[in-house]
């Protein structure tokens, strides 16, 4: 039974333990967005919905709308959000895979902030350098998460 539970838990781990251990448990996104620069160098676990991916030479910037996470660290389907952030990936992330609307969970190091126009205003985005991330499959969010099954096994003994 214990083995089974451990196995299930391992199955649902989107972000490996080693990365989670580096996360600063006292740092919430709500704190970060108010003053990104004062948390430079700290690691945070954050997730949300992808809004846009900008691919540049050698790096890809993913704009994310933060959403609260569930117990699996999956961003919830909710209107609740504390704001937006930018995740600065090294290398190329294909915008056809990291499409707007998909959910992503990131463990990243706070690099600082970046001010970018958003409609007619300027928005100060916290910028993260990702250590670990998980892109959720679109159907992950809409299908029920528990499946119980009863199995009957037949064995032949000789």
């Amino acid at each position: 039974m214990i083995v089974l539970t451990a196995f299930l838990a391992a199955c649902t781990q989107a972000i490996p333990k080693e990365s989670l251990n580096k996360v600063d448990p006292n740092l919430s996104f709500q704190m970060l967005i108010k003053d990104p620069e004062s948390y430079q160098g700290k690691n945070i676990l954050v997730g949300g919905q992808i809004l846009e991916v900008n691919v540049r030479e050698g790096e890809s910037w993913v704009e994310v709308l933060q959403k609260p996470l569930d117990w699996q660290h999956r961003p919830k389907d909710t209107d609740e959000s504390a704001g937006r952030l930018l995740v600065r990936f090294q290398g190329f992330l294909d915008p056809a895979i990291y499409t707007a609307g998909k959910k992503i969970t990131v463990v990243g190091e706070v690099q600082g902030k970046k001010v970018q126009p958003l409609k007619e205003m300027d928005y100060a985005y916290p910028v993260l350098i990702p250590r670990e991330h998980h892109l959720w499959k679109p159907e992950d969010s809409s299908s029920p998460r528990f499946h119980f099954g009863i199995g009957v096994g037949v064995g032949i003994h000789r």
Partner: protein
Amino acid sequence: MALLAATGILFSCAPLSKEVMRQVDETLTYQTVQKNPENFLGKTVLWGGVIVKTTNRQGETILEVRQSEMDLEKRPKNLDSSAGRFVVRHAGFLDPVIYKEGRLVTIAGEIAGKEALPLGGIQYTYPVILAKEIHLWEKIDPRLYRYPYWDYPPFWGPYGYPYGYPYWRHRPYWW
């Protein structure tokens, strides 16, 4: 007494806080105010509708809303009929990805006058309200409102739950 209790329940159904609901003058419907917003300056109204456009300025968000009737819960209904549009000014940032075109809102706000803005080829005069409280209604997922449970097609997989999803909208099997 029963009436009082019922009224109490109805009030508690409204999605906005009691403090704000107390200030609202429910007789001031959109239709009443629309022609001459200036006559009602400073009054608090409760209107609802569908977001048409969201504009973010520094320190301010402007929602353009297409008015609709509201049900008892103050949720916009009969969305295809509308008496017109209005502008809501909110001091602060509302994310345009959340407060998006097509979403339903119910707003308590103070009448602040009118504003003429281009709409298609005409100048449209919008009543302007300063938001005191905004309630954004959750999106209704059409999948949740397919069939009543007794008429639900048998559907068992791959993720099938035979009573539809989510399960709490339906009776558990032992009832």
